[in-house]
Structure formats: structure tokens, C-alpha cells
């Protein structure tokens, strides 16, 4: 057989492989991508053309409006003169009214650094809660933050937040001492100790008014985007614990407690937030003890907190219901009592499942803080509708202002929802 390999017997055999040819032009690179993604069929091509047309219409309106925009003018007439008939935005209103849009109309100007500092500290305080790989020491900032932020925003003597913090700390210490016996005992003892401490400290704060004091700012002077931020953060953080309690109550075997929670949750979820805000502005005052006056911001915080806690309760209830029955039984079989089983086994898992829902509620609530403008509080929307659009200088500058407000909310809400998706991916323990 070997003699067949003489050169004469073989007609022609190529000894090396040919270089690979490039794929056909229609099957490679941009053309392939276009064909597959934009022009795969006739309806698809029509869709592409329609989309291109829509994008053209939007961009052809928006781009000259932004690029021709005037950033430096003192009123709308000057702005129109500078534009000289060209289509362009009058963004000067944002530059000129920036402090009002952010801090409201009445916040003292030389104190603008205080809310700004509070905002930066908010980011620092929230960071360790959001990202678990940050140093745990930062949680100290989170603990102190509520008291510090109150002092920065509202001003007054530093002893008020210090004693408030001290009372809370004493309460927590008593709680940790007693919680080994029973959770209920610990909680009760902690609350009583904190109340006692506050009552005692009250004498100190009464006598140290004005010591190390920042200029006091009244609640009604809060405004602008700052007000939205205050309402959003305070109400979400307050409504989380209330929501957990309500959800547990609704899942409880105790009929009376269950029904109290059911009626509360369904009532709150059944009415629009705006009616609850009306309650805050015109009705709630009737239910406070005669002779006392609570400021509007506090009443609004109460109502929004109740509102969001009902929604958060439903989200957490979903998380509780999604846990397999075996988890509850495992808690029982280990001999844990109700509080221990909830704290150590059920809630950590249920809350993890509920994170996307809770974030949704938080984003929705933050957006809903704009409704306070309807009861004539001057948040960002209230500032735009009221003092700015009603002024002779800037009446008629609608799109720039609404665009600015929409952009501000979009940035905050979109980043929160992106964070929630990231967290969901990080916490996913199922192996897919």
C-alpha cells in the first residue's frame, strides 16, 4: 500500500489548510447586527422606522432647547431678548432660584450650610446600611445621624439632641440587660427607662436653652427639595418598624390583634394619600389635646408614616407568607419562643424576600411626598407652582422648571431602584 504514495499516483493534494475566508458581509459585524435586531422582518423594519422617527421628533425638539439654553438672565423678558426668537430653554430660572428650589423660601440664607451638611452626612449614614462591605464603624454615624440631622436642620440647643440620644441609649442598655429573660420584658423595660431618662433630662434642656445653640428654624420655614428629602427619609425609616409590627399582627393567631391590624391596613390602603393629607391639615388638630398646637410638618409626618407603614406591612406579609412552613416549625421544634423565632429565624428571611417590595414602596412614598404641595406646603413642586411661577420675573417658564423637578426625582428614584436590583442579585442564594 505504501508504494501508492509516489508523486505520480497522486493527482493533487493540498498539504496545508486554506486560510479561513471572512464571513459574507451580510453575516458579520454591524450589518449582521442590524439585520438581526432591526430589520429581521417587514413589521420589524416598520417598527424600526417608527422608532427612529419618534427619536428624531423628540431629539429635534429637545436638543436645540438645551443647547440654545440661557443660563444667565435675571428674568424671563431678558431671557427672551437674549434668545431673540430662537427656540431655547430659559434655564436661568434654575440658576437664579436655586436656593429656593432646594431649601424653600424662608430658610435663613446664612444657614444653608446646615441642610447641605445634613445631606452629605445622610449619604455617609446610609452607606453602611446599603453596602455591607463598608467598615462597620460607620454604623456609629448612622446611629447618631437622626439626632444630629435634627439639630442641624431645626437648630436650637445641642443639649436637646444629646439628651434625646442619651435617653435612647439608656433605654437600649436596659433592653439588652433584660432581653435575656424575655423579649417583652426587655422591650417594656427599655421603653420605660428611656421615657424616665427623657423626663429627667427634660430639666437639663429647659435650663440650657441657648447653650451651644444654632439659630432655630421653624418647621414652616422648611421647603424645597429639602422638604421632600426630610419627609421621604423620616417617613420611610419610621414606617419600617411599624410595618413589621402590623404585618406580624396580621399573621397572628390572636383574633382581636389580627382584626385591629387588618382594619387599619385595609382602611389606609383604600383611601388616597391626598385625603390623609387633608386629614393632617384640617382634621387632625381636633384630635390633639385641647390647647396644644402641633406644627403642620409633624402632622404630615404622622399621616404619611401611617400611610406607608400599611403598604410596607403588606409587602412584609407577602414575605412572611412566602416562607416555607418548615421554617416556622423549625423554630418551634428548637424550643424558641415567638419573639426569638421571629427575630432569629423568620424575619431575617422574610425581610430579605421583601427587599424589592420595600424599595418599591420607598420610591413610591418619596414620589408621593410631592402631594404636600396640595395642602399648601412649599416643597419642590409647591415652590414651582407657587412663588416661582407666580412671580412676575418667571411666570411662563414652565418646561424648564418642570423638567428640572422631574430630573431631580428621576435621578433619586432611578438610583434607588438600580440599587435594589443590585442588592437582589447579591442576596440571591439560589444556585441558578
Amino acid at each position: 500500500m505504501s508504494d501508492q504514495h509516489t508523486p505520480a499516483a497522486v493527482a493533487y493534494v493540498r498539504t496545508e489548510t486554506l486560510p479561513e475566508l471572512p464571513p459574507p458581509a451580510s453575516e458579520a459585524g454591524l450589518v449582521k447586527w442590524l439585520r438581526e435586531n432591526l430589520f429581521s422582518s417587514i413589521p420589524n423594519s416598520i417598527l424600526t422606522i417608527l422608532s427612529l422617527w419618534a427619536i428624531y421628533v423628540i431629539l429635534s425638539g429637545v436638543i436645540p432647547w438645551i443647547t440654545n439654553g440661557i443660563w444667565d438672565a435675571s428674568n424671563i423678558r431678558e431671557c427672551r431678548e437674549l434668545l431673540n426668537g430662537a427656540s431655547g430653554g430659559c434655564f436661568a430660572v434654575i440658576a437664579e432660584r436655586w436656593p429656593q428650589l432646594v431649601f424653600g423660601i424662608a430658610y435663613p440664607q446664612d444657614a444653608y450650610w446646615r441642610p447641605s451638611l445634613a445631606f452629605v452626612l445622610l449619604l455617609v449614614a446610609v452607606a453602611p446600611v446599603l453596602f455591607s462591605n463598608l467598615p462597620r464603624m460607620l454604623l456609629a454615624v448612622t446611629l447618631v445621624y437622626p439626632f444630629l440631622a435634627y439639630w442641624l436642620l431645626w437648630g436650637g440647643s445641642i443639649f436637646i439632641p444629646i439628651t434625646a440620644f442619651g435617653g435612647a441609649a439608656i433605654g437600649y442598655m436596659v433592653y439588652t440587660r433584660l432581653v435575656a429573660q424575655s423579649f417583652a420584658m426587655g422591650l417594656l423595660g427599655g421603653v420605660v427607662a428611656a421615657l424616665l431618662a427623657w423626663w429627667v433630662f427634660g430639666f437639663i434642656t429647659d435650663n440650657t436653652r441657648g447653650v451651644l445653640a444654632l439659630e432655630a428654624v421653624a418647621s414652616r420655614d422648611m421647603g424645597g427639595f429639602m422638604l421632600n428629602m426630610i419627609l421621604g427619609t423620616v417617613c420611610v425609616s419610621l414606617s419600617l418598624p411599624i410595618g413589621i409590627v402590623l404585618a406580624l399582627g396580621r399573621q397572628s393567631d390572636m383574633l382581636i390583634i389580627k382584626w385591629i391590624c387588618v382594619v387599619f391596613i385595609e382602611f389606609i390602603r383604600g383611601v388616597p394619600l391626598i385625603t390623609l393629607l387633608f386629614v393632617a391639615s384640617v382634621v387632625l388638630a381636633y384630635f390633639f389635646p385641647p390647647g396644644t398646637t402641633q406644627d403642620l410638618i409633624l402632622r404630615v409626618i404622622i399621616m404619611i408614616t401611617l400611610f406607608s407603614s400599611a403598604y410596607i406591612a403588606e409587602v412584609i406579609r407577602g414575605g412572611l407568607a412566602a416562607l416555607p412552613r418548615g421554617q416556622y416549625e423549625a423554630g418551634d421544634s428548637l424550643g424558641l419562643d415567638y419573639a426569638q423565632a421571629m427575630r432569629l429565624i423568620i424575619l431575617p428571611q422574610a425581610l430579605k424576600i421583601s427587599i424589592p417590595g420595600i424599595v418599591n414602596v420607598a420610591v413610591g412614598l418619596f414620589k408621593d411626598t410631592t402631594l404636600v404641595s396640595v395642602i399648601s406646603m412649599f416643597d419642590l413642586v409647591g415652590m414651582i407652582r407657587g412663588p416661582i411661577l407666580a412671580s412676575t420675573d418667571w411666570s411662563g417658564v414652565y418646561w424648564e422648571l418642570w423638567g428640572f423637578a422631574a430630573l431631580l426625582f428621576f435621578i433619586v428614584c432611578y438610583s434607588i431602584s438600580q440599587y435594589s436590583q443590585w442588592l437582589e442579585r447579591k442576596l440571591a442564594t439560589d444556585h441558578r
Partner: protein
Amino acid sequence: MSAISDETAPAFRLSMLINDTRYRSLTFQAIALLLLIIFMAYMVNNLISNLSAAGLNISYGFLDDPAGYDVNQRLIEYTSQSTHTRAAFVGILNTLLVAFLGCVTATVLGVIAGVLRLSGNWLTAKLMAVYVEAFRNVPVLIWILIFGTFVTLSGGPPRQFLGDDPERSMFLGAFAFTNRGLHMPSIVTGSSAVAVIMIFLVSIVAAFWWRYHVKQTLYNTGKLLPGWVFWPILIVPAILTQLVLGNPIGLEMPDTTANRFNIQGGLLIGKPLIALWLALSVYTGAFIAENVRAGIQAVSKGQTEAANALGLRPNRTMSLVVLPQALRVIIPPLISQYLNITKNSSLAIVVGYADITATLGGITLNQTGRAIECILLVMLFYLTISLLISAAMNVYNKSVSLKER
């Protein structure tokens, strides 16, 4: 060893209320109920003393007084001499109107956007993603105000449509958008309109009977009767009656020649309604798009492949396999979006649309000063609506829930 013989129940001690699990829950409930009652009593006591201090009382007598204010957009007869009750009903109907319109258009928009976001077309999918994210992440109040401004600033004076030789002609000869709102044809009914409506109702029943009959024949004998006959049965008899009786149901077109200053006749949809309707539909449409997308993605790919393997055509795969399973996921959140539209329509007040919050909870409240009564009634209305809708949703969920062992 005494524990074994301990069969008699131990005597009741007070500490068992907290230490014995048989009694502990009762103790807790009693304490909770007691605290609730004390809290309520405290509130009511405050209310009574506050009211008497201000010289007020709780009374619903004001509802029979003349309202004394005008409402532009209304579905029932109403003048400023009508009672506050009547004004409240105008508001209720307006709320239901804008909620209904909003639900319809939001569903259409949401389904289109949700399906397109999943389409193979990269550009359209991205465009829809931008739409969804832009509208979901900005407060509905800002959208309502933006649409309100947009609608307020658009539309010229009615003059341009008027006269024998107008500057602009009406769209399709029937629609005109002016600074008063949208003029469109209204429906007028003649004396024998009842006959047409009755015939139409009967043909609805007949058409659905036909659909049922087709299905039964298919299941029992395997023969496929023509399903499209459904549509002729539905509409042909009513149209024939309409023609035979000489058009008892007709359209009244907006008239541009009768009056020198304004368009007469037809139906005028006010600007506030248009603004609120558009804003609610486009805002909620973005949420519905997400629900639709989630629903379609929830149907596993194997289902489509199985249907293809059985030889079902693509449209039958969609209608018999994918859609029924996707709808089970889509409909519950869809209904809660409808509820959201109804609740968000209470923001009508910022564009000046006279819904229940604006009439009873707004002008009536301000005129009479009866804050507690008015807000209680408004809340009751919304509560009723949402309880009705969630009851309907529970019935639906029961009917489609997977039957497990």
C-alpha cells in the same frame, strides 16, 4: 415521681395569665383591646372638647343646602342652586369617568409598551425601556402638572374653525381642539332607540352562545365550526334595525356655522379632563407595561416549544398556551393599577377637574367649614370603591388559581 400522678389541673394563679401559653394570648388581646379603647376614648374626648371650644358640632345637614358654586365638566344636570349632595354626585361621576377612561387607555398603552419592550427589535425595546423608566421614576403629580400645562397652552381660539370659510377645518369634520377643550360629536337618541339597544343586547347573548356552541362541538365531535361568525351575529342585527327604523341613534356634530363666537352643539370635553386623563394613562401605562412584561416572561419557554412541537400555529400558541398562563400573572397587579388610577385621580384638584375630592373635599369643605364630615365622606367613597375592586379581584384569583391537591 410525683409529676406522673399530677393529673388534676393546677389551681388558677394570677401569674398563669403571663406564663401559661393557654392564657397568655388572651391576656395580650385583652391588653391590646383595652389600650385601643383607651386611645379611642382619648381621641373622641379631645374631639368633643375641641369642637365645643370652637362652637362646632358634627352634622350632615349642610348637604341639603344649595352649593352655590358652578361645575364645568358634569355628567348630570347641575346648577349652582343644586344641593351639596348633588355636587358630590357630580364629583363622584367625574371621578368614575376619568378613572374608567384612564383604565382603558392605560391598559392599551401598557400592553403595547410591555409587548414591544420584549420584541426582538433592539431600538424599539430600548425606546420602550426609556418610556417606562422615565414615567415610573417621576411623581405622578409632576406628570399631571406637565400635561396640564401642555394642554392649557395648546389649542387656539375657536374663531379659526368658525364661519363658512374657516382658517382650519375640523379633523374628520367632527373633532376640533380649541382653547375651550375638545369638541367632538355627541350621541343623540331618537324615540325608537330602545329597540336598537334591545336587539343589540339580544345579539350579544346570541353571539356568546355561538362561541360556546363552537367550543362544545369541537370538544364533543372534533368538528371545528367557523368561529368568526361571532362578529356578524354581534353587530349585523343591530345595524339592520338601525337602518330599518331610520337611524334612531345618531351623532350630533359640532356646528361651526350657527354662532359667530363659538362652536355650538356636540360634546365638549374640558381641558382639565383631557390633561388628567392623558397624565394618568401615560403614567400608569408605564407600570402596566412592566406587569405585562413580567407576565409574559413568567411563562416558561418550554410551554411555547411544547405547543410548537404539537404543531400549533403561532397565533394559536399565543391564544391557547401563552396568554392564559400569562394573564394569570398579569391580571392581579393590573387590577391594583386600576385601583391606583382611581386613587391618583384624586389629584384632579391641581388641574381644576371637578372630581369628588375637588367638590366635596374641596369647595364644599371650604364653603361650609365642615372638614370632618366632608373628609369622612370622601374617604368612605374611595374605601367603598377599593373594597369592591379588591373583592372582585379575590373572586378572580380564586377562579384562576392553580388547582393543587
